[in-house]
């Protein structure tokens, strides 16, 4: 073989390689939102689209940007990876400081590299494994009082108060604590309530919400893989919403095929259960949109066999056409790889009226998308219990303009007793509070 042929062959190979690597998104999240998002053809990659801004954190006095008519202030800083917020009836706010348990073994060469790349963003830093209580200290403005409320938890995420019992969903089990309003610390040991799927914990968060009458707990359990690469046998009771009877602690699968249901909430008008779900990666920057959906009892939402109804995913073997046929199409797409991690329904609040009657969704952002998408808090308007229009961003500015540095990333949401929107920021280790600019 002569040198010119060799050079041509190398150039051709390099060209194929580069083409296979490039996977820039062509649809904005808003263009891929709603009940009928455009879905391009799925692609295979040598290297999936990847963009990870480097961790920078917030500088003194720096804050996320809010849209006109809103005001943002920091009410807590110096937290250990705050993931989730929960508003107690007396106005105290619980901040769950947590991250994954790090129990997922490295079983492929890809994980060695991908884990290092993903952790550059600061999203992989160790969590506090505790719950901190924030209390407003009389004077308006400034940071709130911080108290370590419950310590020594195991990658906690969901929190729910029913009566005088506080349920905390660790990654491997729900534990129950006695709650006394006004206390700033619980020293009693948690009572084991129910075990949760805990092998591998590829997706480790266990979201939690109670039924309106407090008789049931709904638990969001994420899948143990992106798309069954750890084996279908590892998906037992995963990618499900479980329903737990509070009186008996008996549980059943309430809905399935929900890849990673990270936020569960009850829609206030209909009393129905809704979830935000993170969809699969590595088949394109514009696939698959993460979504917001009502969760029907016994419903199957596609994962792993199909997405958005009957769009079959060829990476799963054996295929299950019988399940694909009955897959429910989710109600509302939020955009691909926005990584929705916080959900809050709010009828009325201390924000302008256009942010009433709907759901706030925080989007944590993903490694599998270029240019970046997510890294914002959006509002989805609801009419008669159904989402309408496009998600409207209200908080952003979590990364630098050139997309190279990451200051923060929004996660859990809550509403305080004054109607302000609270946002946990697990990269910036802070809690932010959003209100109307002029009351």
């Amino acid at each position: 073989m002569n040198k010119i042929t060799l050079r041509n062959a190398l150039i051709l190979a390099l060209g194929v390689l580069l083409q296979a690597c490039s996977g820039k998104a062509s649809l904005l999240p808003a263009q891929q939102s709603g009940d009928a998002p455009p879905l391009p053809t799925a692609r295979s990659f040598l290297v999936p689209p990847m963009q990870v801004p480097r961790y920078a954190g917030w500088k003194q006095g720096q804050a996320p940007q809010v849209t006109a008519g809103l005001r943002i202030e920091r009410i807590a800083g110096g937290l250990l990876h705050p993931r989730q917020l929960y508003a107690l009836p007396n106005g105290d706010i619980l901040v769950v400081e947590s991250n994954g348990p790090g129990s997922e073994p490295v079983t492929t060469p890809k994980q060695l590299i991908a884990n290092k790349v993903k952790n550059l963003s600061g999203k992989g830093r160790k969590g506090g494994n505790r719950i901190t209580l924030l209390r407003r200290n009389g004077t308006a403005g400034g940071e709130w009082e911080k108290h370590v409320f419950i310590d020594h938890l195991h990658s906690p995420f969901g929190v729910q108060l029913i009566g005088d019992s506080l349920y905390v969903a660790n990654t491997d089990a729900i534990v129950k604590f006695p709650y006394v309003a006004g206390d700033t610390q619980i020293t009693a040991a948690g009572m084991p309530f129910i075990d949760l799927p805990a092998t591998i914990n590829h997706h480790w968060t266990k979201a939690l919400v109670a039924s309106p009458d407090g008789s049931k707990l709904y638990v969001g359990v994420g899948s143990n893989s992106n798309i069954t690469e750890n084996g279908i046998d590892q998906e037992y009771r995963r990618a499900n919403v479980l329903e737990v009877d509070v009186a008996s602690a008996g549980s059943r699968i309430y809905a399935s095929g929900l890849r990673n249901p990270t936020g569960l909430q009850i829609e206030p008008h209909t009393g129905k259960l809704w979830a935000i779900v993170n969809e699969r990666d590595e088949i394109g920057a514009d696939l698959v949109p993460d979504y917001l959906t009502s969760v029907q009892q016994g419903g199957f939402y596609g994962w792993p066999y199909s997405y958005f109804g009957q769009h079959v995913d060829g990476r799963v073997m054996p295929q299950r056409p019988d399940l694909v046929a009955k897959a429910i199409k989710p109600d509302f797409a939020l955009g691909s790889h926005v990584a929705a991690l916080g959900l809050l329904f709010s009828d009325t609040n201390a924000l302008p009226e256009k942010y009433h009657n709907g759901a706030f969704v925080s989007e944590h952002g993903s490694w599998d998308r270029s240019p970046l998408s997510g890294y914002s808090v959006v509002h989805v308007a609801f009419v008669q219990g159904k989402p309408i229009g496009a998600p409207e961003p209200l908080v952003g500015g979590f990364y630098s303009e050139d997309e190279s540095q990451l200051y923060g990333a929004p996660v859990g949401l809550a509403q305080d007793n004054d109607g302000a929107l609270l946002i946990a920021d697990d990269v910036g280790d802070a809690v932010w509070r959003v209100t109307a600019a002029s009351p």
Partner: protein
Amino acid sequence: MNSRDVPHRSTLANAIYGLLNPLPFGLFVGALIFDLIYVRTAGVLWNKGAAWLIVFGLLIAVIPRFINLAQVWISSRHLAGRADKLDFWLNLFAIVTAIVNAFVHSRDAYGVVPDGVWLSACTVILLSIGHIVMAVQHSAAGMSAHE
């Protein structure tokens, strides 16, 4: 390369080459076998095993390939025959194929099929031809030595 004909080549380099050069071939053959089993069974451990075999095959190939590069084109190029050069190119293309295959094997689950299987087969075929070419050259050289 026929070591009996190459007194000018470094003994140490020849020893290292002789020790390491067979290993990637074995690992790539193992990867192909695992791939074929994965296609039939969809058992994910076969797929993950194949991914590791390809990566280790590539890592171990680095040193013998550089020794071969130096011997064929630089230090002993006056001794390198057509078979040596052909073997070099076959190995180079096998390595390029294996590198692409390592990326294909980073796909999740059955996304590796069928591309990964074809690439594993190409790697093994290229290396097999290289081994046969060198073996035939050795026999020919051996016969001519006896004549």
